[in-house]
């Protein structure tokens, strides 16, 4: 870069900084709000951190908002975490196996099955939510982890992604492993899975966040407080009857709810970015 390079570099950095500010500002507000007591936040907003930071988080994690009838956030985080993990792992396992079956095996109605899976892409959770609820209710799976996660596990998108990836794996690799004596599952385990690991990591991040952020479905299938997820919890804290919402605690909960997805992204980043930008020869 030369001459105008400096200017355009400035411009680029300006835009980037602006973008980061737009994203980071609400988080900053949440952080600040979560460090004051309830009174401070009534009718005004402080510009700097207060002294109740640790106290707020301890309250939220341990006992929750007693006055508003909200439970402790700790168990909610746990529920969310279990749900997100089970959905992510389940989705990946199911979809990689179905993609494997569709790409590598000749069975009757193979393309039929492929299209059946593919068509469900057009039916997101929200569209089929009532019949799904009916099924789960009839199976008596309400208020259970199974009910919370099972309907969200089947995934046409992930199956399709893995299928597309498997189609790019050279056929000679399959043949070489057949000659080496690997059976289908051995080939899957020793060759296909390691080759898919960047895809798996990328998908894991995306699906984990998808699971973590589920709102409507947990709202429907859980009636017992012990099964509430954190995203539902926040909603319940805000809409308290006959009292001020305790915004300091709500914000603390929000920050806590933000952490696990961030953690997953940070931990998986190395693989995730690799999966997006690099294809292994």
């Amino acid at each position, binding site marked *: 870069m030369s001459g105008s390079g400096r200017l355009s570099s400035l411009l680029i950095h300006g835009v980037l900084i602006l973008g980061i500010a737009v994203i980071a500002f609400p988080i900053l507000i949440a952080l600040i709000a979560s460090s004051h007591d309830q009174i401070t936040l009534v009718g005004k907003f402080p510009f700097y951190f207060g002294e109740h930071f640790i106290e707020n988080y301890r309250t939220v994690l341990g006992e929750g908002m007693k006055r508003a009838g909200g439970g402790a956030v700790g168990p909610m985080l746990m529920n969310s975490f279990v749900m997100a993990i089970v959905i992510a792992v389940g989705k990946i396992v199911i979809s990689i196996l179905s993609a494997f079956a569709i790409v590598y095996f000749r069975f009757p109605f193979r393309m039929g099955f492929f299209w059946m899976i593919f068509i469900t892409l057009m039916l997101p959770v929200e569209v089929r939510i009532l019949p799904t609820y009916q099924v789960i209710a009839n199976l008596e799976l309400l208020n259970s982890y199974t009910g919370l996660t099972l309907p969200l596990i089947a995934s046409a998108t992930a199956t399709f992604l893995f299928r597309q990836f498997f189609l790019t794996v050279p056929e000679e690799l399959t043949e070489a492993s057949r000659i*080496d*004596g690997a059976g289908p599952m051995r080939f899957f385990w020793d060759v296909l899975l390691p080759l898919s690991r960047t895809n798996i990591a990328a998908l894991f991040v995306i699906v984990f966040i998808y699971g973590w952020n589920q709102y409507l479905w947990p709202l429907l299938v859980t009636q017992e407080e012990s099964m509430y997820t954190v995203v539902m919890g926040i909603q319940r804290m805000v809409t308290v009857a006959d009292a001020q919402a305790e915004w300091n605690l709500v914000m603390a909960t929000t920050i806590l709810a933000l952490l696990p997805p961030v953690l997953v992204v940070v931990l998986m980043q190395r693989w995730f970015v690799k999966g997006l930008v690099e294809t292994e020869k």
Partner: protein
Amino acid sequence: MAAVAFSAVRKSYGNNPVIHGVDMQIADGEFIVIVGPSGCGKSTLLRMVAGLEAISAGTIAIGERVVNNLEPKDRDIAMVFQNYALYPHMSVFENMAYGLKIRGFSKSDIEARVKRAADILQLDPYLARRPRELSGGQRQRVAMGRAIVRQPAVFLFDEPLSNLDAKLRVQMRIEIKRLHRELGVTSIYVTHDQIEAMTLADRLVVMNGGRAEQIGPPKEVYERPATTFVATFIGSPAMNLIPARVQAPDLFELAGGLSVRLPAPRGAAAGTDLTFGIRPEHVALADDGAPLTVELAEELGADTIVYGRLDGGQELVVRVPGYLELNIGDRVGIQIDTSKVHLFDKASGQRL
């Protein structure tokens, strides 16, 4: 090590026949090279031996066993692919060891075998690397190593060198030859490259349109091609094929009017039409020979290839040793070496 026997082997993809009955006996330890134009079924034939394609009819036997219904892993073969087909996520060592590991060899056994193969192929410094950190030639050697460690009865090669540059190809060709001498394993090798075919083969199989047109030692295929197809396919530039008529048992009139008298009668009745073949290197320049008008001369250094036309209009290619400067339109005299003439049936193309 084992012999391989093909009997009446056929292959169809759906209703589309691709291999039309191949019969061939490969002796234990023999190096067989399959050549032929693109799409003639070389790879298909090889893959049927490997067990990667089903055999539509006929049988293939490796050693005493008919292998038609055996899985590739049970056929005691190893295959080297054109694009190497190495496992990208495994190190060189793991690539070579994988087949042994699956077969349940002990760790020390695996190590010993891989070590030996790495020694033979000079791969020692690279054992810890991934395939993508290797050059094309090194990858090809790893692919070969993977085949060697298994100590199979038969090696199968499908154009293993065609992704390499010319120099490396020569080097690897010599290496394969050496390997075969050392290990003595029955090998079937598919190639497009004539030099590979001529230098590696104990016997050459020339395929055309799903049939084996000729099977024989390279020298025999070169000197006594069974059909006009083989005659033009093997040898570069290709053999001159000229329509001719028998005047007398030893006297032929070529298209364009040139008469050629052979040293001895060849048993063709006077009056029959046939195809007269002569290789470019068996035509010499001679001042008092039949006149040829030069249309193009390629100076290759060691030889000069002269493309010209006889006075009657018949095209003729001549290969002259040494460096010869000729211009388009020059007229030279040519002399056919009458002891090197090939005669083919006009209709069937079969050698007479």
